[in-house]
């Protein structure tokens, strides 16, 4: 009952705000929109305590039977174990905070009710996703969050660019979903069930299903890479920043994009037997992490930097999944939710203060004007950079350690590239801090005059998230998840590397800070000089490796040509329209010919009748 309630409360909020919000006014929308997620969070805590009291045995709840086909019943069932508990708490907790933040951020917007309705709808689908026992329920949530994401990216749809970004996200996700669906079909064919605990048990059991675990794993990973913006389906996430900033924080940083990580961790039973698929996951994740980090170094839009940083961090999570450290990936999901939400909301607070300005080239020197935003932003930056003892340090260090030492595919090469990524992360994040908050002001005088700290509802949320980013890492989440997601074994010979690697990882974090200070302190002159020396490299990086352009050449234009020439001209206009118009013309011409007979002369008509009768008689005599 409780689990169903967690899922249904945000849905109730969606209907209340969506149907009556505009009529009942902003106070009503605020109360409904924020209270229901908070209530869901409270119930999630209660369920979590129940789970702990039960010693971690999963709580299962069947809401109803969706379909009964042959001997198979497809239930809407909820499954609350340690993994889904962590996810539900993140989703409802961070989600509620972001709802509260949105009160201040969206205060002036004319579609206030619609915004909260969509946010609640998103929470509903996200909870369905993480609570579903069956892949089918997960898939409904999966598509639903895609829908909510589409609606919220295109929230200000009056501008064509925003609507286009929404479409891009939706369509790119469809590509991944095709893989996901195929994986589901294959699993159902092989195991005869879609319930994930049973699938995992089937793969872990003595008689493994007669299907290649790697094939299933890769197909599911295609789906995950769509939702979690991994190469080659990462192109939608930077554009998704067209939505309001709380949306970027909630959907495109803290929760929805981690759904792919959740999926892989949830299906760990399959991936443990899929060595090839795991390698693919690790390599793609690492490549994404590294390339996204290099792009982030050159971006000037404050939200774009954070977007590429999100892609990069998601890549690190997939690296952890690929080397079998599933619980570590979830640990990073958890810490990332705090500091990335804090960063995005901080960026939102900056944008709010500067009346919509997003370009860091027209910022600078904001530290003293908006101190709360500055402090929280720096804490979150230090957390993502991996400076101890903040949250990001613990999770990132664990990922690096298992990338190095895991007996399921860890290697020094993975560690090396991941460390380079960590260095870049630290560098571009502190670059962002320098460009935004420190140095001299580069703002336009009109904007500068209006700079103001955000209202309490926004700064309060920032403070809570910054505090969580600071201390969140002390929770030993991998240990908590160990009963269901065991850590990969580490060879005995590698144990003595642990301390040197730890020291290296701390050094890397501070090195990034130092580099950022070196290049961007002192008015960023050194950065400008470096940029001039490497113009080509800079153009490639700031052009995002021209992947959008590549897709346009390889896919967009050929498809456009085929649609235009084959489907529109040859198919639609020539074949379909042509044949229909031909038939219509034939009918019109024949009618034109016969209408000459209608002279109005009764005698002629009578003569025709007689002639016809005579012809009939003659014919019947001959053939009678």
């Amino acid at each position, binding site marked *: 009952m409780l689990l169903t309630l967690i899922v249904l409360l945000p849905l109730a909020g969606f209907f209340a705000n969506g149907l009556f919000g505009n009529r009942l006014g902003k106070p009503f929308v605020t109360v409904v929109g924020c209270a229901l997620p908070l209530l869901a969070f409270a119930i999630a805590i209660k369920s979590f305590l129940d789970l702990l009291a039960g010693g971690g045995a999963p709580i299962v709840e069947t809401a109803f039977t969706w379909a009964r086909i042959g001997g198979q019943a497809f239930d809407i069932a909820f499954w609350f174990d340690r993994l889904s508990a962590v996810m539900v708490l993140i989703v409802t907790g961070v989600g509620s905070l972001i709802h509260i933040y949105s009160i201040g951020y969206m205060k002036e917007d004319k579609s206030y009710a619609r915004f909260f309705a969509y946010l609640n709808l998103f929470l509903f689908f996200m909870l369905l996703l993480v609570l579903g026992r069956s892949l089918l329920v997960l898939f409904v949530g999966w598509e639903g969050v895609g829908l909510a994401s589409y609606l919220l990216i295109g929230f200000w749809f009056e501008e064509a660019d925003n609507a286009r970004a929404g479409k891009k996200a939706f369509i790119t996700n469809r590509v991944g979903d095709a893989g996901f669906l195929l994986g589901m079909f294959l699993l159902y064919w092989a195991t005869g069930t879609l319930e994930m605990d049973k699938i995992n048990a089937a793969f872990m059991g003595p008689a493994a299903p007669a299907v290649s675990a790697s094939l299933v794993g890769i197909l599911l990973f295609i789906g995950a890479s769509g939702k979690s913006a991994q190469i080659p389906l990462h192109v939608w996430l930077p554009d998704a920043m067209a939505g309001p900033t709380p949306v970027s924080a909630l959907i495109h940083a803290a929760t929805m994009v981690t759904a792919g990580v959740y999926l892989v961790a949830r299906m760990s039973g399959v991936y443990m037997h899929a060595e090839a698929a795991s390698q693919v996951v690790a390599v793609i994740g690492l490549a994404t992490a590294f390339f996204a980090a290099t792009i982030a170094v050159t971006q000037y839009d404050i939200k774009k930097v954070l977007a590429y940083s999100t892609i990069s961090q998601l890549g690190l999570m997939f690296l952890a999944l690929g080397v079998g450290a599933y619980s570590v990936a979830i640990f990073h999901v958890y810490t990332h939710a705090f500091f990335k939400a804090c960063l995005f909301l901080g960026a939102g607070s900056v944008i709010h203060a500067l009346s919509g300005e997003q370009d860091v080239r027209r910022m600078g020197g904001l530290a003293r004007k908006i101190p709360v935003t500055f402090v929280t932003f720096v804490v979150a930056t230090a957390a993502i950079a991996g400076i101890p003892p903040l949250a990001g340090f613990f999770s990132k260090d664990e990922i690096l350690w298992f990338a190095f030492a895991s007996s399921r595919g860890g290697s020094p090469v993975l560690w090396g590239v991941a460390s380079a990524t960590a260095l870049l992360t630290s560098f571009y994040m502190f670059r962002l801090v320098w460009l935004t908050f420190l140095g001299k002001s580069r703002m336009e005088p009109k904007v500068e005059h209006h700079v103001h700290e955000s209202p309490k509802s926004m700064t309060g949320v920032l403070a809570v998230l910054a505090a969580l980013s600071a201390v969140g890492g002390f929770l030993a989440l991998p240990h908590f998840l160990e009963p269901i997601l065991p850590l990969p074994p580490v060879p005995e010979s590698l144990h003595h590397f642990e301390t040197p690697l730890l020291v290296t990882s701390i050094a890397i974090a501070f090195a990034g800070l130092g580099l950022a200070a070196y290049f961007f302190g002192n008015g960023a002159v050194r950065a400008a000089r470096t940029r001039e020396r490497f113009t080509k490299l800079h153009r490639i990086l700031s052009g995002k490796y021209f992947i959008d352009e590549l897709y346009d050449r390889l896919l967009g234009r050929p498809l456009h040509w085929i649609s235009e020439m084959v489907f529109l001209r040859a198919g639609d206009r020539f074949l379909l329209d042509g044949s229909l118009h031909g038939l219509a013309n034939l009918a019109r011409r024949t009618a034109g010919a016969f209408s000459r007979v*209608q*002279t*109005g*002369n*009764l*005698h002629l008509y*009578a*003569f025709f009748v*007689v002639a016809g009768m005579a012809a009939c008689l003659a014919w019947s005599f001959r053939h009678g």
Partner: protein
Amino acid sequence: MDRMQILLLLAMALFALGLIGVIVRRNLLVMLMCMELMLNGVNLSLVTFAQQTGTSAGAVLVFLIFVVAAAEIAIAIPIVLVLVHQRRTLDADAYVDLNG
């Protein structure tokens, strides 16, 4: 030539007279009368055949034709009257502009 043949020849003559009348005469009322003539030709052939076969179906059909003919005339005559009222003529050719 027995009586049946004479009757059938008479029926045919009636029908043919009516048909020729409908085609060649221009007066609307005469055309209507010729149509009645054709119907009566058919009626005559029907009763003749009914006599010949000794069944009543033909005779019953004759009554049906009477009814239909009466109904038809009841509609046709007013139409003709309205037309004449408009143009003061019974000539069918005067109404050529009513073509579909």
